[in-house]
């Protein structure tokens, strides 16, 4: 990323969209909409002072909604460019409220609430589409109860939980437990506030609330309006503290997730959704299981799959090492359903095809290896750019010209072409660059010929 940001031959137009493409190989005219960030790119140094002061909290898309960010934000800490962006849906100033705190904080004077989208035109010889993929939404599979059971997460969510810079700093805290902890924090805030009000009254009447309340309930202060208010306050305070104590007791028993299940082919190799194999998910489940066990050595993982497709260089070896050293068990089988057991534990019911038995097992957390879905905007993009899609909505190519689209001069690489892992995406990116350079070279030659 850094190299991209710094390379002299590379102009990066982030937060931008292609609106129109005209022309032909060697000479395309591309219209690009540069969406407004409400921040001047040449001024913003990416320091983040604004985000620190911004009072609006928004679920953090980068952390798969597992954490929060401000309304002015950089997508993630090491993002390139580091230019911050105001989220127009959440910013108070842009929604007619009084704020502008970021503008006051920014010493570089980069905030500009008046900034508008800009349209620019580019002249290019060749185009490479690298628009990637989307994560399949597993809530479409009702029997996995992804949205209903808190401790059933997607692999990408789990990736964020594993990350040292993620919302749990790499601890395997369970989402159900995190929800309770969040509730505790909210209740504690409330309790503090109501305790403050009580403190005042206790001072005034020179008596602890609890002792007073006993007498009050015994009918001692009948008709005393002031004391009635105190009693009401105390009663509502108890309504906060009592469940709070309950939750805290519960939270004491929380431990990190230690028994993990990974479910393969979620949405892949499935006629209802995507019949193809997404290629990389078997490996990322193994990787996630290995990392989880590195974090907490007592972690055990069970990977449920039809075939474990460890087909890259060193992959089969990695898979076997995972089994030998990282407490991973591979089970050949199809998952029938996931239900919720005691203590928010997901229970996986599956057919063990080796043993020819239907079995159920309880886990602390279940991770779904979701399919590589064609990216949502791909239809519009393909239409705008003028290339054909295959029947699944990946960009159409042929196996003998693996990065050529149906339109000369336009190339594709990575998961926009079909599901593939990082090394293959990187190799394909070089292939697409090569094809684009060939076009550039040929059109230079023609220009020279025309001059001569």
């Amino acid at each position, binding site marked *: 990323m850094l190299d991209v940001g710094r390379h002299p031959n590379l102009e990066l137009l982030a937060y931008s969209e292609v609106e129109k493409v005209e022309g032909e190989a060697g000479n395309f005219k591309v219209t690009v909409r540069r969406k407004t960030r409400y921040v001047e790119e040449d001024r913003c140094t990416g320091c983040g002072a604004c985000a620190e002061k911004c009072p609006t909290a928004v679920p953090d898309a980068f952390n798969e909604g597992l954490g929060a960010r401000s309304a002015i934000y950089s997508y993630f800490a090491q993002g390139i460019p580091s230019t911050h962006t105001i989220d127009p849906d959440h910013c108070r100033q842009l929604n007619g409220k009084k704020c502008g705190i970021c503008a006051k904080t920014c010493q*570089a004077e980069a905030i500009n609430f008046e900034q508008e989208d800009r349209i620019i035109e580019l002249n290019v010889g060749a185009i490479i589409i690298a628009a990637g993929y989307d994560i399949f939404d597993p809530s479409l599979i009702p029997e996995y109860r992804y949205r209903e059971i808190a401790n059933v997460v997607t692999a990408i969510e789990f990736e964020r939980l594993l990350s040292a810079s993620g919302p749990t700093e790499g601890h395997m805290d369970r989402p159900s437990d995190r929800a309770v902890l969040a509730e505790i924090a909210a209740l504690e805030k409330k309790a503090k506030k109501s305790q403050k009000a009580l403190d005042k009254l206790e001072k005034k009447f020179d008596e602890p609330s609890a002792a007073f309340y006993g007498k009050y309930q015994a009918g001692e202060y009948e008709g005393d309006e002031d004391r009635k208010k105190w009693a009401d306050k105390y009663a509502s305070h108890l309504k906060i503290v009592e469940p709070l104590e309950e939750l805290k007791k519960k939270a004491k028993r929380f431990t990190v997730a230690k028994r993990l299940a990974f479910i393969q082919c979620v949405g892949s190799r499935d006629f209802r959704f995507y019949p193809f194999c997404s290629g990389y998910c078997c490996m990322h489940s193994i990787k996630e299981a290995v990392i989880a066990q590195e974090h907490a050595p007592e972690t055990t993982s069970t990977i449920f799959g039809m075939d474990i497709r460890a087909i*890259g260089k060193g992959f*089969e070896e990695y898979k076997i090492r995972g089994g030998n050293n990282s407490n991973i068990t591979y089970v050949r089988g199809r998952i029938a359903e996931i239900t919720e057991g005691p203590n928010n534990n997901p229970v996986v019911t599956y057919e063990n095809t080796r043993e020819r038995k239907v079995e159920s097992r309880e886990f602390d957390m279940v991770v779904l290896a979701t399919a590589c879905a064609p990216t949502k905007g791909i239809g519009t993009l393909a239409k705008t750019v003028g290339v054909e899609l295959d029947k699944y909505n990946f960009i159409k190519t042929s*196996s003998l010209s693996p990065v050529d689209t149906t339109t000369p001069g336009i190339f594709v690489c990575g998961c926009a072409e079909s599901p593939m892992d990082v*090394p293959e995406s*990187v190799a394909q*990116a070089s292939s697409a*660059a*090569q094809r684009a350079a060939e076009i550039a070279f040929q059109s230079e030659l023609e220009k020279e010929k025309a001059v001569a």
Partner: protein
Amino acid sequence: MPDKKEDIRIGVFLCHCGSNIAGYLDMEELEEFSRKLPHVTFVLRNLYTCSEGGINEIKKAIEEQNLNRVVVASCTPRTHEPLFRSSCGEAGLNPYLFEMVNIRDQCSWVHMKEQEAGTTKAKDLIRMGVAKAALLEPQEPIMSEVQRRALVLGGGIAGMTASLALANRGYEVVLIEKEESLGGMLNNLNKLSPTMTDAGALADEKIKAVTGHVNITVFTKAKVTEVRGFIGKYNVDIETESGVTTIDIGVIVVSTGGRAFVPEGLYGYDGKRVVTQLEMEKLLKDGLDTDIKNVVMIQCVGSRNEERPYCSRICCQTAVKNAMLIREQNPDSKVSILYRDMQMYGVENEEMFRDSKAKGVRYINYDPANPPQVEFDKVRVYHPLFGRDMDLPVDLVVLSTPVVSQEGAEEISQLLRVPIDENGFFLEGHVKLKPLDFATDGIFLCGSARFPANIRETVAQGLGAASRASIPLAKGSIVVEPIISVLADEDACRGCGLCVALCPYGALEVRTTEKGRKVHVIDVACKGCGVCAATCYQHALSINSFTDNQIEAQLEAFLD
């Protein structure tokens, strides 16, 4: 050097990085502290040293304060060192008289809750940086020309694709093939999945394009016997029947492919009733005997075992393809595939897998702990769904054997000084991020020389390797950072060659000089990793900007 102390004027710039540093460390104290350090004549704090304003302050101070060393204490050299270096250069100071101190990533960010301790650590870091800066010496970037000609080693589909790609961009290509004709594995194959393209026709088409291209010179029945030089300036001996030719080369692409494992002694292999998938290709090409009614294929023969732990990626695809072709040629035949995992990854393979089931190919999973038994006219296998052994009648057994490393790969590895992995395939520079580069600059990799791959992947890699190789060719020269190894003490060097053996980039060689055997550093190949200097027990080698005395000064400053 150290004793000309009076000459040295160091400017220290302390960056607040907004609140990223100033929010956690006591900047005023750091400023006071820096002022008192030896040779420091100027100290300035900036909100952002990297902003235009901050950079201008550095330039101004170099001129007005006559600074001859600059130290910036800020974020991390990973992102900002190039900027600060070049800014010094713009102000007329040699860019290598700059030193960066990391007080953000390695200090303020990790000690957010410990201002005092963090500030003390920052002081140590700054004191060390200043001590080193005082000893820095100017360096000049190293330039070297690049011969605009590529050598492609191996004329299979990978090598032919790479050759054409480079030639289409106007570069000269020398393509070396050890066999009589180009084409590689394709010459032995029948139809290619998933499109069922005729392998021979594809080979012919490519061979025609390659041999007809003005920019490509093909040597067949040829062998590379000697490779001298380094990126941009290789000098290669090529031996053919008509003698040895020597050619200057700029970059090298390795595409020597692989071969199919021959399963001697496994499952009764005899090449007749029990054959490999490669032999099956020929049987299908010649037209299958109509008597063949019952075929059993066994997967992972010689792969995914102790000796060869890897999965060869393409044999499952090949089996499915051939199973369908058998059913097509002999429609009343029965074909069963006995497998461990069907590796039909991706869109096209999985589609073919599904298709094959619809076309009647049967699949039986086997456990490697209880493998199938091949007998004369039947194969016995435990069927997990029925929970018992089954006997499958056979007229032909086909063994899916892995692609293994090419004959002579080791020799190539020694000639080019590039590594091979534990399975005998060439080892790329970085498994994820540099799949088609070797760690050594100027040498690239594609096709089954790297790892088994199908045609789609091989073609993509051929194009990709060409793309990577074209970068130095397009530039025509390379410029390297002068932070490299130098033979600082020639007399001390005994020419033992310990360092040569350890250098991961092939940047060292022993030469015979008037003073005897001495090590020589190939500037442009050296990456300044320091392995050699750390190894040399004679302390003859040293790394620019990381010399022993500079590092000692840093250590002393730390212990102060």
